[in-house]
């Protein structure tokens, strides 16, 4: 038998396919739970990509993070990204930051940034990272009129994120090595990246035209904060994680000479909601 025959010729065995045409969310979860019992378990991102696949935000995040199949046409997966110039830079930068291209690590980071930036939990405490992202996607899934279900809003959101990540990565002078990675590594750790990226994104939304000037004027103060004030907590339980992210995001916006409350309002005006108040409430809550 030749190699070509082995791989190209039709085979005489059948592959069983089960097609669910009418299934609730709960039933889909159950199917993935059953499949996940054996072999390599799906991680939270892989399950979320499947469960919320019909939400364009999920697919656009996947593509923008660089985790989608590069051979599939973007117009078929996430048409909202067509209007975002150079959106592929986002995934390249996240990879350069040390988040590999296996098992949706970059999608996880980007989803986390988006949910922290935009998910208003109302009076409820913020849940764990994965649950917070899922809750946010579920809120869009359940409300067809949600602003983030609109293509134009998504285009604006990913254009904003792309610009913010470009600025974040271009200004290496801001981030001390000990802030980027508290264990002497060279690559960014998640909590520090999240807090600083949310802060830069809020500042960019609030004041896009002069953000570069603000960074230049306050670079030394921000760099000093990354050395002296923003120390990653040794215990990274859910609440201490949120407290650290909230502190970095808030103080970074303040160091750039902007009012965080006003910046949060700008975010809400542009994208329909802001997660800033929920984040700060969680951080200031007495345990």
């Amino acid at each position, binding site marked *: 038998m030749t190699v070509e025959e082995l791989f190209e010729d039709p085979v005489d065995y059948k592959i069983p396919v089960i097609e669910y045409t009418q299934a609730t969310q709960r039933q889909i979860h159950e199917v993935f739970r059953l499949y996940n019992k054996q072999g390599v378990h799906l991680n939270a991102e892989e399950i979320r990509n499947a469960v919320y696949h019909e939400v364009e935000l999920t697919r656009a995040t996947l593509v923008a993070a660089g985790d989608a199949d590069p051979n599939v046409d973007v117009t078929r997966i996430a048409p909202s990204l067509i209007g975002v110039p150079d959106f592929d*830079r986002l995934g390249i*930068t996240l990879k*350069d930051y040390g988040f590999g291209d296996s098992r949706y690590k970059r999608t996880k980071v980007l989803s986390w940034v988006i949910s922290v930036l935009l998910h208003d939990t109302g009076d409820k405490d913020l849940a764990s990272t994965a649950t917070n992202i899922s809750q946010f996607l579920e809120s869009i899934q359940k409300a067809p009129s949600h602003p983030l279900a609109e293509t134009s809003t998504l285009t604006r959101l990913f254009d904003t994120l792309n610009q913010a*990540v470009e600025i974040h*990565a*271009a*200004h290496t002078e801001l981030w001390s090595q000990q802030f980027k990675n508290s264990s002497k590594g*060279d690559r960014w750790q998640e909590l520090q990246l999240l807090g600083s990226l949310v802060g830069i994104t809020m500042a960019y939304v609030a004041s896009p035209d002069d953000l570069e000037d603000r960074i230049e004027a306050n670079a*030394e103060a921000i760099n000093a904060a990354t050395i002296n004030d923003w120390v990653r907590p040794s215990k990274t339980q859910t609440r201490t994680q949120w407290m650290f992210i909230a502190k970095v995001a808030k103080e970074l916006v303040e160091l750039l000479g902007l009012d965080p409350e006003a910046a949060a309002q700008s975010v809400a005006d542009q994208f329909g909601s802001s997660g800033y108040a929920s984040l700060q409430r969680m951080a200031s809550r007495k345990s």
Partner: protein
Amino acid sequence: MPTAPRLEHVYYDPPTPVPAEPWWTRYAAQLVTLSQTARLALEADCRFILERGVLQADAQDSTPWPSSRVRTGLVMGSVQSGKTASMLGVCALSIDHGIDVVVVLAGTRLSLWRQTYERLVAQLDPGEEDVAKINRRLLCPAPRVGLADEPVTLSDTYRISPPELRRKLKRGKPLIVVAMKQADHLHALGLSLRNNAFDAVAQFDRPVHMLVLDDEADDGSILDAVVEASGAVFGNLRQIRAPCQSLGSPQGSPSNLHHHRLHGHPAGHLLQEGTTRLHPGTSWCACAPPSTSAT
């Protein structure tokens, strides 16, 4: 008759004047071991090489660039004539005069590469690694990598952040690379430039200038190291020479990237009969007198 200025500025803290040639000024301030005469000779050599060699294309010749977008120069100097000092001086002046990317090919062995890196950092790029220093250039390898004791992968060694490079080139801040003259290192640097730098360069609507400085570029100097490392002399020589040449080659690079190649040779170059050859297509040649290093 000129009119008197009608606006008077009164400063409580007057702004620090920025020197016209900040890179040269910083470098010259580090040359404390040289006598005044030696410093003047070194500066004269460096300016001659820059103005008559590297920049001649842009300053004096109306049709300077061949279609290949490559100009190659040769600088010859006696042993201990201060070739490395001249090379760093040309680096400084080149940056001050608008060269965007400087690649220094340094050392065929780790110890020599590191020695040149440390000398370049100490003399060309001195000072604490603070905000102002990080903002004035993009140094590759980064200091935490170039001066690290732990082994680092080659892709990490020559990592260049595209957003940082885009921002710095836009603001006229240079990319400075110190690469080890070894096949794997040169391939890793070439890959990094293609993946991370060329897109950034292509976005400019002006020519971007890259200067590759190959100190000890003669075959004899390379052979010295190769012979020490291995018996397979001519195969290894080709392995080093090919990536050295490809770094300064326009093949696969954006059409607005202009390549300057500057080869440094010992004056005994012409005596290396049988193994050496002058670089074909050399556009200009300069000879440094033996007195430069006199202290």
